[in-house]
């Protein structure tokens, strides 16, 4: 369950140096919680090894999220930490760019091509299901559009981009964001359990998490909770989804403009470029450089480790920004629509991914 109750620095009113200084306590908190999670994982493994015990490995990812959740929902995140904690998405994007070094461009094209085909199917299903459910539950049409975009493409970023383009209310955007984040939180628990239960391969699970979990941070975490290899695939599949954000937002903008309820977009190419997530380009650039052996083996390891450290900060932030109490303050219908839609999308994508994994 989640809300977006964490404050971020109000940049325009602060000098850059002051704004940066305000980030330090929160970033240190992210690092401390993430590192504590890593320490707990290592300590348990060391203890189990020393005492010849067989204990299932609980990844640092889960510990970091759990500690963050406990802090957020008990003592809360003190104001002094909030600006820095809000940078977790910044670290996520940096981590994804670093991760590019672990992919050879051929793999990106092969897996990305497969992901693209699956994303097309997922996108169609998600938009159809959400639109239908929105009508059944009598949600406002623009809130339905926001939920459809949030569940089909990339969660919060897509909702924010679409809200501006279709001129939806802030209230609708806030509801859609809360619903998508709450369901993303649940997916962290449900996805790994189903994946293990069905004995999915790393590739199948990674593709499934990348396709069906909406927010990039949660998709990355859901992948990492399964295995390192699954996390890699989940990030690639999710990045492929993210890359399509501009097209879907543009389609919705054109639809609402045709109804006279949003401004017409004249420069469509410019619009697509503006909405395109630039971290995808950074990811591809590092993958390209790795393909042409620009980095030595040790350097690739170092950059891959930078990616892990960046994700460690992200996972701590996922827990810290999740506030269960805030959920009660939102209306229930968007959550029901989101939950029913997400279950349907997850089930269909699971079948598609399992089939693709068997035959490709």
């Amino acid at each position: 369950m989640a809300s977006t109750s964490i404050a971020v620095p109000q940049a325009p009113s602060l000098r850059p140096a002051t704004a940066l200084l305000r980030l330090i306590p929160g970033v240190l908190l992210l690092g401390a919680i993430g590192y504590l999670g890593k320490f707990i994982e290592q300590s348990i493994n060391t203890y189990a090894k020393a005492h010849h015990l067989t204990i299932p490995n609980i990844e640092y990812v889960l510990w970091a999220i759990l500690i963050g959740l406990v802090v957020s929902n008990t003592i809360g995140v003190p104001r002094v930490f909030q600006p820095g904690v809000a940078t977790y998405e910044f670290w996520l994007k940096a981590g994804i760019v670093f991760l590019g070094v672990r992919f050879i461009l051929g793999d990106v094209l092969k897996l990305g091509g497969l992901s693209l085909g699956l994303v097309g199917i997922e996108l169609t299903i998600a938009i159809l299901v959400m639109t239908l459910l929105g009508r059944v539950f009598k949600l406002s049409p623009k809130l339905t559009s926001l939920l459809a975009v949030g569940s089909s493409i990339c969660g919060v970023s897509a909702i924010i981009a679409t809200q501006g383009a279709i001129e939806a209310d802030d209230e609708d955007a806030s509801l859609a964001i809360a619903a998508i984040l709450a369901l993303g939180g649940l997916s962290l628990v449900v996805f790994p359990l189903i994946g293990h239960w069905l004995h999915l391969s790393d590739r199948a699970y990674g593709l499934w998490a990348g396709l069906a979990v909406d927010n990039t941070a949660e998709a990355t975490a859901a992948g990492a909770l399964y295995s390192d290899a699954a996390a890699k695939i989940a990030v690639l599949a999710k990045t492929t989804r993210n890359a399509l954000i501009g097209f879907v937002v543009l389609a919705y903008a054109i639809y609402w403009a045709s109804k006279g309820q949003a401004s017409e977009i004249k420069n469509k190419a410019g619009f697509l470029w503006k909405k395109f997530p630039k971290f995808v380009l950074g990811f591809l650039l590092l993958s390209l450089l790795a393909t042409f052996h620009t980095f030595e083996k040790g350097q690739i390891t170092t950059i891959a480790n930078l990616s892990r450290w960046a994700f460690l900060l992200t996972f701590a932030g996922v827990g810290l920004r999740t506030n269960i109490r805030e959920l009660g303050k939102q209306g229930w219908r968007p959550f029901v629509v989101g939950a029913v839609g997400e279950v349907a999308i997850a089930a269909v994508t699971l079948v598609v991914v399992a089939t693709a994994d068997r035959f490709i």
Partner: protein
Amino acid sequence: MAQEQVEKKRFKLSLDSWAVWLALSLALLVRLGVVAKIPW
């Protein structure tokens, strides 16, 4: 309240390109040997 939340999200998303530059700059520093081995 809703507007405030959306504004916060919008501001955070505007930091995305900075994340790309930070990551690419660090990768360059690793390539040049300025940043040595980073363990996990």
